[in-house]
């Protein structure tokens, strides 16, 4: 009986491998052999996890999973996770941390599509890049990310934060097209450049541009509101993450609202 496991990917799976359900709290209390017997969907075939991973017990007493290897073909890592700690030494596939509600996930490499989709709580940190549709809604759903903290040290793809409605995101690199499209609420701070159609049909929510200022679309308008108190609070919480966000508290930001073609209550905060 153990709480913490180390899983080393032995060989690259031939097809996509679905790791949904392999979460720290679900696996805690098993022994390594039982863990290795756990079936995984490999394409349309259920195979024991041990076919792909060497499972080793770690001394840690808190529910913990550590993955090692190039998990680029492994989808659903940390999906619907509800506690504990999960670490990946390498890249991961799609749906990383989708519907995460509590606990912490850290990935040293990059993640595929739909990372942090419908993230509801906890903390997800990716050292590399993430693909399209991150922090958005699962296909067909009405609401995107709805809580928690999501940090990306690299770049993010298109449609990041689509329909997002709560939570905080920090992007240290660049963002693709349609950043924060149809956003309903929440906060996204981006340090790098942003692509075309930023804030498309954004209804509410906050976008902080810590790096180069974006092109201002015709459907966003400057406002003369005094936001010093709000800014002091927001800047302080973002500055804690360091790097390009460290100096935010010293700004007197310019505030724009939009997208006026949607609800028009979203805000952009730009260097003053």
């Amino acid at each position: 009986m153990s709480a913490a496991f180390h899983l080393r990917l032995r060989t690259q799976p031939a097809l996509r491998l679905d790791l949904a359900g392999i979460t720290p709290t679900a696996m805690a209390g098993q022994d390594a052999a039982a863990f290795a017997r756990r079936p995984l969907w490999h394409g349309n075939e259920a195979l024991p996890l041990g076919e792909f991973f060497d499972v080793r017990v770690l001394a840690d007493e808190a529910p913990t999973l550590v993955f090692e290897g190039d998990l680029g073909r492994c989808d659903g890592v940390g999906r619907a996770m509800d506690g504990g700690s999960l670490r990946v030494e390498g890249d991961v596939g799609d749906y990383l941390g989708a519907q995460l509600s509590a606990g912490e996930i850290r990935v040293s490499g990059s993640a595929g599509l739909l990372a942090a989709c419908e993230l509801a709580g906890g903390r997800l940190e990716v050292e590399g890049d993430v693909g399209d549709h991150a922090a958005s809604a699962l296909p067909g759903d009405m609401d995107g990310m709805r809580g928690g903290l999501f940090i990306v040290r690299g770049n993010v793809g298109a449609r990041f934060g689509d329909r997002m409605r709560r939570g905080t995101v920090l992007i240290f690199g660049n963002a693709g097209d349609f950043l924060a499209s149809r956003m309903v609420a929440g906060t996204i701070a981006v340090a790098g450049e942003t692509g075309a159609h930023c804030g498309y049909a954004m209804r509410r929510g906050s976008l902080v541009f810590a790096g180069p200022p974006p092109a201002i679309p015709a459907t966003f308008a400057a406002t003369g509101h005094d936001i010093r108190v709000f800014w002091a609070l927001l800047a302080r919480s973002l500055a804690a993450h360091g790097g390009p966000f460290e100096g935010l508290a010293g700004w007197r930001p310019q505030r724009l609202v939009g997208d006026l073609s949607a609800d028009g209550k979203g805000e952009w905060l730009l260097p003053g």
Partner: protein
Amino acid sequence: MSTLRLRGGRIVDPANGIDGDLGDLCVRDGRIVELPAAEAVDHEYDVSGMVVMAGGIDLHSHIGGGKVNLARMLLPEDHRINRRSDNPLELASAGCCTPGTLATGYRYAEMGYTAAFEPAMAVSNARHAHLEMGDTPILDHGAYVMLGNEEVFLRMLAEGQDVERVRDYVGWAINATRAMGVKVVNPGGISAFKFNQRKLDVDQDHVHWRITPRQVVQTLARAVHELGVPHPLHIHASNLGVPGNVDSTLATMDALEGLPGHLTHLQFHSYGTEGSRKFSSAARRLAEEVNARPNISIDVGQIIFGQTVTASGDTMRQHANADLGSPRKWIGADIECDAGCGVVPFRYREQSYVNALQWAIGLELFLLVDDPWRVVLTTDHPNGGPFTSYPHLIRLLMDKSFRDEQLAKLHPEVAANAELREIRRELSLYEIAIMTRAAPARLLGLTDRGQLGVGAAADIAVYREDADREAMFTTPEYVFKDGALVARRGRIEATPVGGTHYVEPEFDRGIERSLARYSEAHLALSYRHATISRDELCSCANGGALLPCRLHGRAERPA
């Protein structure tokens, strides 16, 4: 040649008047036969202590075509939550209220059903419907072509063309789309919606064509009857879901003028306006009318609490309901101004007064109509609830104390006042067998299905006797399709291809010239592609058997 014998079962076969007789049932090459008790068979099953019935037949279940596929696309969450099974015989397919074609076949078969009929096939989209049904394993299938809202028909009616000519058109449409019957959805109303009408009563004029739903129902019922189509006109009446719609439902029955008509999902058409909420049950009033009119048959469209999706051709009513959708998204669509389509996800809630009353109304209809041969058990899958809830529904009908227990959980006003509380009737196994097999087979004109007489197709469901009828009907011990074991204890054992039921009424081909002219002038699809040939139907149906159905008053035609 392969033979099997089911030994010592309790046979419930209402079509042949058999109610629980102990006996053996023998099958040779997919047909029920009589074999001497001493004769050896290839497979022998001891079914003593079990109930043997014909395979279930669902005569109203949305299983194929454009709106079904739109519903699947609208609700990917249904497919995420209801994942694939671990049975290696099953190909990946998911979903509960919007099951994929494969999951549809698997889930029906493991519940003891061997046939299902798609009630709303648009003329312009018939190929799609047949392709999807062909992709549905195990089940036999067929579809009713949706008429009564397409421009070409309304124009003929408005111009006052001869009934014979309209009948030829209906005959052409049935043949062209390889349909099993004709359904009319909100007669004239879907078209009226496109002319900005938001309501169309039975005797109200369509603003453009100046015809009434009464005329549409009358004309189609007569055409279907005269063409010899066994299944009566399948009618989704006007004003679906509208409080007080009992009046238009009765007017629709009157419009039939004694001709046979099948009123579908009657629960949604049985509402009064009494009480402080102006929403009440008119089930008793309707049931009495159904009892008094032998030309009427119904299916109920029972609602089941929980998440589902409503997929209907009735754009007018679905547009009105779109704001009630949950999750809040919907699709409205149209092809060729042919009919309509509205897909609205819905979550029926026990604590909602309206939903609770709808639930009670459905059960009241089941229990107040005296003749089970004219009532078919449906939830209008998926509109009232997914077909997988049939075993639960069967228990509600067979078990008064279970029914009371469920009723007590509902909105307090409904729990305290519903007429359902006073109804003591509990349906017997025999009556359930009628409503789920024998009656739908008879109403469809299927002579060798829904029964276990010698010569009938060996579609058989064997249930282990259990006082909990829900458990009993959820996992039959054995299910045979055309004599092949397809499911055992709720697990799929084989996935043969099902057959296609259709009718081929005769009509005057002279109609084709004017239809071609109309098509070339107004439609996007070329008239040359309007008709599905037998060969094409065969490939649409995945190589399954073609099962042309005998017409009224005519000798059987060679297949």
